[in-house]
């Protein structure tokens, strides 16, 4: 158990290290250097040299990478060249907004998707099952940004029932009403994903020996489903949700832009627009770490709940 935990954590650290190194190497493999990209075409050579020195770009590549890792370990993500503020501070003050959005989205999707999948599996091949199946595929097929724009159009522009802009000025109710549309847009395809996965794994579990045994003992169907089948059938959704954080992050980028919500997504889009290099780097490092942390956490929870997963 502990061996698996340590190995998995070590692997996660290695993956983040490789990803950050790749990013760094990619930046340098590209023609034109960050300094001239940031300063635009009319910068003088002296200005460029000064900025390169300031960003540490004039040192050899391995030294730069090591230095970057050293800074990362000290929690230093660099300095925003435009405002002079620390990138770490800028990024981390946006993290709560994005995490709230992602958690709300996956939360409501799980509350609806898991029971829906469970019901479909029990009432297999009924109308409800077939409608759920087609609806699942359809919601998966609609990209989150199209969903976000359509939700904005219907509920904020036509019906004018929900606020479209920002994250609310404060107050729980205000925050919640501002969260409804973005969370709907980001989460809706997850209802479909989760329903499909739970349905499939539920069908598998319902055919297993211990369930047949419970049936043979004459246990009531409700008890079989909720006590013996469902706890096993939801296990695959944990891994799915861990991997899904990447898609949720991408979905959050669009939702934040469409609904003008503050968050990492809105931040990185702004930073790319203004070629604010250190901020882009900071956002990529933080989101990548978040994603790897989520998949690792999902794997660890899975291993904790399901002894079979520890062997792999």
């Amino acid at each position, binding site marked *: 158990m502990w061996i698996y935990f340590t190995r998995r954590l070590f692997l996660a650290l290695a993956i983040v290290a490789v990803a950050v190194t790749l990013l760094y190497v*990619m930046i340098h493999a*590209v023609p034109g250097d960050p300094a001239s*990209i940031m300063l635009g075409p009319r910068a003088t050579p002296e200005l460029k040299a000064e900025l390169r020195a300031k960003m540490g770009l004039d040192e050899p590549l391995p030294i730069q990478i090591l230095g970057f890792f050293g800074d990362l370990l000290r929690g230093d993500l660099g300095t925003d060249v435009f405002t002079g503020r620390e990138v770490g501070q800028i990024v981390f003050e946006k993290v709560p907004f994005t995490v709230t959005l992602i958690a709300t989205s996956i939360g409501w999707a799980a509350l609806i998707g898991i029971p829906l999948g469970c019901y479909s599996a029990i009432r297999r091949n009924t109308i409800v099952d077939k409608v759920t199946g087609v609806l699942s595929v359809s919601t998966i097929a609609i990209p989150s940004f199209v969903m976000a724009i359509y939700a904005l159009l219907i509920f904020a522009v036509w019906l004018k029932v929900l606020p479209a802009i920002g994250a609310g000025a404060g107050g729980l109710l205000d925050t919640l009403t501002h969260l409804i549309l973005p969370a709907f847009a980001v989460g809706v395809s997850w209802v479909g994903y989760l329903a499909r996965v739970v349905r499939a794994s539920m069908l598998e579990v319902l055919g297993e020996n211990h369930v047949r045994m419970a049936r043979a003992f004459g246990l009531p169907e409700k008890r079989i489903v909720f006590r013996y089948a469902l706890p096993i059938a939801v296990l695959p959704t944990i891994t799915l949700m861990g991997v899904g954080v990447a898609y949720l992050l991408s979905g959050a*980028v669009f939702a934040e832009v469409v609904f003008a919500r503050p968050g990492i997504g809105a931040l990185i889009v702004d930073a790319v627009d203004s070629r604010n290099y250190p901020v882009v780097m900071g956002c990529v490092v933080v*989101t990548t770490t978040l994603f790897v942390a989520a998949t690792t956490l999902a794997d660890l929870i899975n291993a904790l709940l399901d002894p079979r997963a520890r062997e792999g």
Partner: protein
Amino acid sequence: MRTSDTTAAEESRAEADTVRGAGALLQTWRLLRRDQLGMLGLVLVVIMVGSAIFADLIVPYDPTQIMVGPRMAPPSWDHLLGTDHLGRDTLSRVIAGGQVAFLVALASLGAALSFGLLLGLTAGFGPQWLDNGFLLLFDGVRAFPVIIFGLATVTLLGPSLWTVIFVVAVTSIPIYARIVRTQTQAMKNNEFIVAERAMGAGTPRILGVHVLPNVIGPLLILASMDVPLVITTEAGLSFLGMGVRPPTPSWGTILNDGYSYIRNSPWPVIAGGIPIVITTLGFTFLGEALRDIFDPKLRKDL
């Protein structure tokens, strides 16, 4: 229980199918016709791909020509999907946008497949240390959320069609490479490979003649199911203004323009989103039907 008669009959039919390639196609078509959602998918895909191929012939107006009609007009007989804020014909832009979407899909998936095959075969057939190194590299690349990686790349390369293709290709390579690697490793110690090696065949021959044909089938099905993902990424980046540059029409830029004027006219937004949904649905339905026919083992949900 199968009787030996039916097995023999099946075998002879399988043989006949390999003799006549057309027979296998016909068989697939028969199976596909029974799948209603699969047929729906095929129809949608044919419509979308067809309109992209013949875009230049069927567009009613020049998609980049401004003021072919009034600004922000609702649908009418002259402009079936209305016009945008510059008075461009939205239907023409939607049709031309399909061309961009499928061009990106074809180029990026083609590149991802070739590199994925190459790296996967190397990792699967090469020495252990190389395999481990590649795996770590693949996982490192996959650790970036696609859109975030795309945005970072745009900062470096600037927004363009080629940047989008590059982003999709780079993020898809590890996925295909991993699948090829696993399949190659599973096949490496098969008897027919060992026999081939004993007869003195070199690694290129084994990989090219024996391993490649066995891994390419499932890979192509997976790639065709990834088409929606690619189209979504292209439209998404273009929507953020980080993909295809104006005035080139793309479903994403149509959505972006429409979003800016959403309070004036809903039509550009509606027209820009629907083709993405139709294409995605079409490829998903068709892909799932084909997968069930060719290789039920690939099913993730059963």
